[in-house]
């Protein structure tokens, strides 16, 4: 789309335990080029759970290197396990202040409403950066991720910290998307990323109708054509499409740069 910087708000580069990490990182950038994605907000996650401190430190170091390898294309989320209270806090501050990372990525080590997450939320508020939080809502099976967060947990965290910029991850890869969208209706501070492999028609339209385009962030989470396609195909105004594709994320990222 002309006249808008397209920002993928949820992407991943590859852990160096993957022998093909360098080639796979390059493939992601090449695919972004083909699809007109200007910037990717990335984190790197380790393969093991729960996340050890050494592991998240490795991931953030790999990511800082990648940001230098692909100048102007990658923005960094600092990935931590909030259970390491002091070390996670120090890691986020260091990577934001010294390496220019733009946010925090949390996975499923803890639920978003657990007190152990509060110090990271407070730090994110202080640094004026968003937290992108892994999410999913599955209604019928025992979750293979027992501490996965859903929109209800985010709404609770957002009530406690209304000034926090919290992003609920992958509405199209996190189970019942209708439930997620409806649950976030009354949590106006929570953004929703549109990524995921599920190509269901109508997701974006319902999210715009229920939450407003201002709260939606284009993202792929590595499902690139599904994610680009759903924004291209959504029956929404071009003005709303521009907000989703990049303007909203730019607004989030500008809060820190305009301190």
């Amino acid at each position: 789309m002309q006249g808008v910087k397209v920002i993928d708000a949820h992407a991943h580069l590859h852990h160096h335990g993957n022998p093909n990490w360098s080639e796979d990182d390059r493939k992601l950038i090449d695919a972004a080029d083909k699809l007109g994605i200007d910037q990717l907000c990335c984190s790197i996650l380790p393969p093991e759970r729960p996340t050890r401190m050494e592991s998240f430190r490795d991931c953030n170091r790999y990511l800082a290197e990648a940001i230098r390898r692909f100048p102007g294309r990658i923005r960094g989320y600092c990935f931590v396990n909030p259970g390491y209270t002091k070390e996670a806090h120090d890691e986020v501050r260091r990577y934001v202040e010294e390496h220019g990372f733009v946010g925090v990525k949390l996975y499923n080590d803890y639920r978003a409403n657990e007190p152990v997450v509060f110090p990271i939320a407070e730090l994110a508020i202080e640094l004026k950066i968003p937290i992108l939080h892994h999410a999913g809502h599955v209604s019928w099976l025992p979750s293979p991720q027992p501490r996965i967060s859903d929109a209800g947990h985010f709404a609770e965290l957002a009530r406690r910290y209304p000034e926090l910029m919290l992003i609920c991850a992958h509405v199209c890869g996190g189970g019942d998307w209708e439930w997620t969208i409806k649950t976030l209706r009354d949590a106006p501070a929570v953004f929703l990323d549109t990524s995921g492999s599920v190509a269901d028609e109508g997701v974006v339209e319902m999210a715009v109708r229920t939450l407003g385009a201002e709260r939606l962030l284009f993202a792929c989470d590595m499902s690139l054509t599904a994610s680009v396609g759903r924004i291209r195909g959504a029956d929404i105004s071009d003005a709303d499409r521009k907000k989703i594709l990049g303007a909203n994320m730019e607004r989030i990222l500008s809060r820190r740069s305009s301190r």
Partner: protein
Amino acid sequence: MIDVNAYLGHFAFRQLRHNTADGLLRFMDRKRIDRALVSSAASITYRNAHAGNEEVAAEIRNHRDRLTGCAVLNPVYAGWQDDLKTCHEEFGMKALRLYPRWHNYKLTAAACLDMVHKAGERGLAVTIPMRVEDRRQQSWLVDIPDVNRDEAAALIEAAPRVSFILTNGSGFTASRLGRKNNGLPANYAIDISLLTAELSNEIGQLLSNLGEDRVVFGTGMPFHYADPALTKLEILDASEAVKEKIRHGNARRILKL
């Protein structure tokens, strides 16, 4: 452009839009899709799946130039032989769609093989959606895994003279179905609706492993947006001649359109 993976009617667990013949045609016009193979979304959960075929036949009666009917039948339900005859001879349907997980049978069951052979004798193609919905978002009422790829391979092997189209699937290259020189007859094609055209590029791998005649265009509309599949075709690293086969040539041959 021919879409081999399209639906009409209501689905039990989620509201669909563009799910009437007129609505789907308007949607297809916007996406420049000329023709679609359509089956009943309701038949996925109807006990008597044929009631959905009757609904689809009535919907597409005046649109057969663009909407081609596809029967949904259950080989372990009463009367499928009569229903197959009706779908073919009266409704003019060109294919049969199977839901083994939802209709509670195995693709390798004798009853299924019998129905597939009967469809093949009538010149109908057989399509198998590997999934209806992502399992993570299914209703609390159901627990339906994807169709087992090895089971699909066994059926394909057991019915070498029948033409198959596998839709709504991925991960084929990790199974026998997507491997080069896999020993299976070349009687099946795979639709692109849930395949990748970038990163792992499963479409490219299937073109290389199975050949350019074995990949077809499908969207899953109106369950799915059409644009993900259109975007895949746009960025696919393949010649225009190959893309034309994917857009319509292969489907036209398999469905005898």
